């Protein structure tokens, strides 16, 4: 009889030692934690006199903190109140025309360059905006001002309502098929359906999701920079930026950064204690739901109206960007290396592509190491830390630490790419974790027994499942960095701007046609990046003639 040891040693897979899975991820996680700790410590160290009493003594600081909290709470509340009915309507209407496109658009909202969208919002809701003009005709007494709390909350709702709706829809679609069938059979609808099926499905994701959206609104920078209306509508992030860039008051910057850190950190500590987390990006497609009683007749009409209004709300600013930007972009010598647009594009890509690659590599390493129980705490912390420590706080610390040596060129840009990559980590982790975990227990055991380990495991089992999510993750990483207007504002140079900075400069100097062209170009660049990711990983679709039981649509997609 064959000797098992001799048989298996001959087939030892390359890189199958567990250290190859554990060490890189552990190193990356420790690097993220160290860099964050260094940034925050540097901020504290450089602050000459930290005066916490300033927080309640200074009227300005009090108003900054209270406005930051207020606008974030209001944004979360309105976004959620809009997102829940939209998610329910989309769940009820799986065959609604254009539903797929709308869902893609909702996913993209996460990476849409803030400053470009803001310019679109101004074109629609600004004093001279399309919609403001129409509404003013009907309500002449309308006193609407986009700048200030109105605009900030509107922009936050634009970005976050689709995100919340998308995740809640995912939670609704994840309700077990058997339960949906039972509900369909019993004819549940309305409040009973909400109580029995929908609310229990949404409840577990809500704490993490709302904490995420609150953090995003709380730390929002570009929106407040562009739509904030003076000292009365300033958030902590903008106040930190002003303290650093214009007042050179490191003590105040450090104090504000600590306030921000404690509020965000406290919130996430609470969420982690609850043991909840939001799945930020969709990771699965689900099979066809059974027919239900509440998606026909009048209910269908109401759902369609709601979905249409929501789609228009998302599309109007984008259409405005296209309409305003096209004339400028069409006449621009795009490929002339001397034009500011060309140079800003090169600079943006030079930061965004390495940032995207870094984010994907770091994510893979962290996910691989996270499967070892002893590394779980470290990798988990590193994955969520960028949500707790806002980029401007981190950037401020590192800016202060490296101030004398870090200029606007090479190393400074590398640091920007690194911070951008870090900021993309929490989102990209969500994209990769699901497909990686989709290898079920039996398959993993089969793979173990067959010796499909190390490189072979990656090549034959993980890569086919991961190549699409990884390409999408890379696109998200590149997209988030392309639209970054926070970290780059600290390290960037006005003479060599990235695309968002160029757009901000053009808006500031009233070059409105050029600004619109830059905004449109940034959106187009984003679409090119996502299309490339899609095309490069496109595989032939299969038409199974006998779909066995327990096979999800996702399995077929992978095939």
């Amino acid at each position, binding site marked *: 009889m064959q000797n098992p040891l001799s048989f298996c040693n001959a087939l030892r897979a390359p890189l199958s030692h567990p250290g190859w899975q554990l060490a890189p991820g552990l190193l990356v996680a420790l690097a993220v934690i160290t860099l964050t700790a260094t940034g925050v410590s540097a901020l504290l160290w450089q602050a000459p006199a930290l005066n916490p009493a300033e927080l309640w003594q200074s009227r300005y600081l009090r108003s900054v903190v209270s406005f930051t909290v207020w606008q974030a709470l209001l944004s979360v509340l309105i976004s959620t109140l809009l997102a829940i009915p939209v998610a329910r309507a989309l769940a009820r209407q799986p065959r609604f025309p254009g539903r797929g496109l709308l869902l893609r658009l909702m996913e993209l909202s996460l990476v849409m360059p803030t400053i470009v969208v803001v310019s679109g919002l101004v074109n629609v809701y600004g004093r001279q905006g399309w919609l403001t003009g129409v509404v003013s005709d009907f309500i002449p007494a309308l006193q609407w001002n986009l700048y200030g709390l109105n605009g900030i909350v509107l922009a936050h709702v634009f970005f976050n309502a689709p995100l919340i709706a998308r995740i809640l829809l995912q939670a609704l679609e994840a309700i077990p098929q058997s339960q949906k069938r039972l509900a369909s059979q019993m004819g549940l609808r309305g409040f009973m359906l909400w109580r029995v099926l929908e609310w229990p499905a949404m409840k577990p994701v809500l704490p993490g999701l709302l904490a995420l959206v609150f953090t995003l609104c709380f730390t929002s920078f570009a929106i407040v920079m562009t739509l904030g209306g003076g000292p009365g509508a300033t958030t902590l992030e903008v106040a930190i930026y002003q303290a650093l860039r214009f007042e050179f008051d490191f003590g105040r910057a450090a104090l504000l950064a600590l306030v921000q850190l404690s509020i965000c950190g406290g919130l996430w500590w609470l969420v982690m204690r609850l043991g909840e987390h939001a799945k930020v990006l969709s990771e699965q497609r689900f099979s066809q739901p059974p027919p239900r009683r509440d998606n026909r007749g009048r209910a269908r009409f109401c759902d369609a109206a709601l979905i249409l209004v929501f789609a228009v709300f998302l599309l109007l600013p984008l259409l405005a960007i296209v309409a305003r930007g096209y004339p400028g972009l069409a006449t621009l010598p795009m490929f002339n290396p001397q034009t500011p647009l060309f140079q800003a594009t090169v600079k943006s890509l030079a930061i965004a592509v390495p940032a995207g690659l870094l984010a994907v590599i770091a994510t893979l390493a962290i996910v691989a190491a996270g499967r070892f129980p002893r590394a779980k705490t470290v990798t988990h912390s590193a994955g969520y830390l960028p949500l707790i420590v806002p980029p401007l706080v981190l950037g401020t610390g590192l800016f202060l630490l490296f101030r004398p040596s870090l200029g606007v060129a090479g190393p400074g840009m590398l640091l920007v790419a690194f911070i951008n990559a870090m900021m993309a980590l929490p989102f990209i982790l969500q994209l990769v974790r699901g497909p990686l975990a989709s290898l079920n227990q039996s398959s993993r055991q*089969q793979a*173990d*027994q067959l010796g499909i380990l190390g490189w072979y495991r990656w*090549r034959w089992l993980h890569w086919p499942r991961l190549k699409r999510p990884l390409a999408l993750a890379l696109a998200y990483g590149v997209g988030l960095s392309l639209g970054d207007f926070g970290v780059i504002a600290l390290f960037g140079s006005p003479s060599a701007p990235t695309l968002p900075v160029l757009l901000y400069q053009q808006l500031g100097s009233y070059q409105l046609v050029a600004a619109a062209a830059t905004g449109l170009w940034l959106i187009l660049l984003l679409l090119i990046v996502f299309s490339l990711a899609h095309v490069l990983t496109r595989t032939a679709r299969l038409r199974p003639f006998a779909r*066995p039981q327990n096979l999800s649509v996702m399995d077929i997609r*992978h*095939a």
Partner: protein
Amino acid sequence: MLDVSGLGFHYPTPPEQHGPKWQFDFTLSPGECLAIHGASGSGKSTLLNLLAGFLHANSGSIRWHQQELTPLPPWERPITSVFQEHNLFEHLNVADNIGLGFHPGLKLSGAQKIEICAALERVGLAGMGKRRPAQLSGGQRQRVALLRALLRGQPLLLLDEPMTGLDSDARHILHGLLLEQKRDGVAIILASHDAEDRQVLADRVWSL
């Protein structure tokens, strides 16, 4: 000869919760089939997982021809398992799924490729090498899983409800393949609720 003695296992639970504890003692000769049955939670799958190395025993030993297997990881044990489902990797075609039994990196010789084609033909799946598992029926998928297990050439086969949900034709094909393996000296442990499977294949039946 497989010699399992004092093989003890319990799932880690807090001391105040008295979780189930198992202890197994038995032997199995080459070419013999031991069928085990029992209610859910009686320990059938636990035993198979302990033998395969998917679970680590708290005590005892597993020996195959005097060689101690307990410290070995699953891929170094002379064992192949076939589960009730999810035996095949959905994104690989049938031939590649079987080929993994020969080499975990799919580095196959010409002879091995020919062997895979011949094996497929023998079980009525000729020409289906390029198909994906999603394009096969449940019975066809189990035949492919069993073919991979057999071509892997390990002397001990663990079957965990491999025929649940299959029609009688598919069952007869699998029975034939397994009886052939028994004749070739492969020892089989079969966990099954089905009396017909036990009657056709088992030399001994063990109720847990």
